[in-house]
């Protein structure tokens, strides 16, 4: 049973990978479609401002007029939060690296110590180290 079962499992794994790849392609196609649709909406939406006013500065002024204070506050709040997140994340990654170093020392005499295979800061290998 074991050999035939292993073959069956490998076949299921292979078809799972294939299915996953097909899903990935569909997902990317939908993403690209959405990006293109968004760009089209942006350009079509901005066109009247750019064509009705020969002077570009006036067109931009019109757009700025439409951005009210609450919008600007929202964007500022989002930017501040994102910056705060980034700074905190940098600190967290640094702490993980330090903790990992000490944990390695602590576990060095363990009879068995297998690694997660992640980077020192806990990221998936191959990605950008933070």
């Amino acid at each position: 049973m074991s050999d035939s079962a292993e073959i069956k499992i490998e076949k299921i794994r292979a078809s799972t990978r294939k299915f996953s790849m097909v899903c990935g392609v569909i997902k990317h196609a939908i993403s690209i479609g959405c990006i293109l649709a968004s760009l089209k909406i942006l350009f079509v939406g901005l066109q009247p401002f750019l064509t009705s006013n020969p002077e570009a500065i006036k067109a931009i002024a019109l757009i700025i007029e439409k951005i009210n204070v609450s919008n600007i506050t929202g964007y500022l709040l989002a930017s501040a939060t994102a910056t705060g997140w980034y700074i905190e994340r940098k600190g967290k990654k640094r702490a993980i690296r330090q903790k990992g170093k000490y944990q390695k020392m602590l576990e060095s005499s363990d009879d068995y110590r297998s690694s997660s295979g992640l980077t020192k800061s806990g990221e998936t290998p191959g990605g950008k180290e933070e």
Partner: protein
Amino acid sequence: MINTVFFVINVIFTIIIWRYLLRKSILDHYRDKLFDLRDDVRNYYIANHIPLSDETYKNIRDLINSHLRFTEKMSLVEVIFFSKAIDDDNELKNYIKNNIDNKFKTSDKNLNSFIKETRDKSSLILFDYMVFSSPLLILMFFMIPIVFFPIILVKWFLSNTKKELSLIRESMRETFKIFVKFIATKDDLEELSYENENCIA
């Protein structure tokens, strides 16, 4: 039209925040839970004077490590597909179950229940990640209290006890567990996760 333009800009910002900020934090959060679980396992073995060279320790540590590696690659559709393919073959299903169970076999009753609990916890962490890393599933998850809320509110007024409010949380958790059982078993997830074992350094 300008409102549509702003809507699109806001949607783009939301996607960027989700993809490059929130999703990373969600991944870290669940990986932290797995790392904590791995530490708990080590502490348990040391506290109970079980040598770390024990086969069960090696296997449980390897399992959590493969889960750690597997978390980011985790895809709900992949797990459902794999689980459903195995569900069709009872013989194969039993083979996988026995194969995995053998890795954690021990005569120590306490250790046995600890291992079972740890396996359950690690699988649930992965399932939690699957749900909370998908915007669509998060939306579905938070729809549960909205559906249950009127029923619980009526019950609360009728019985006039605050205890009923805890049902919201309980019902969410129970529904999640049913959902997990429906999509895949712990064994399927572990089998799929073991695929990464060779990548472990």
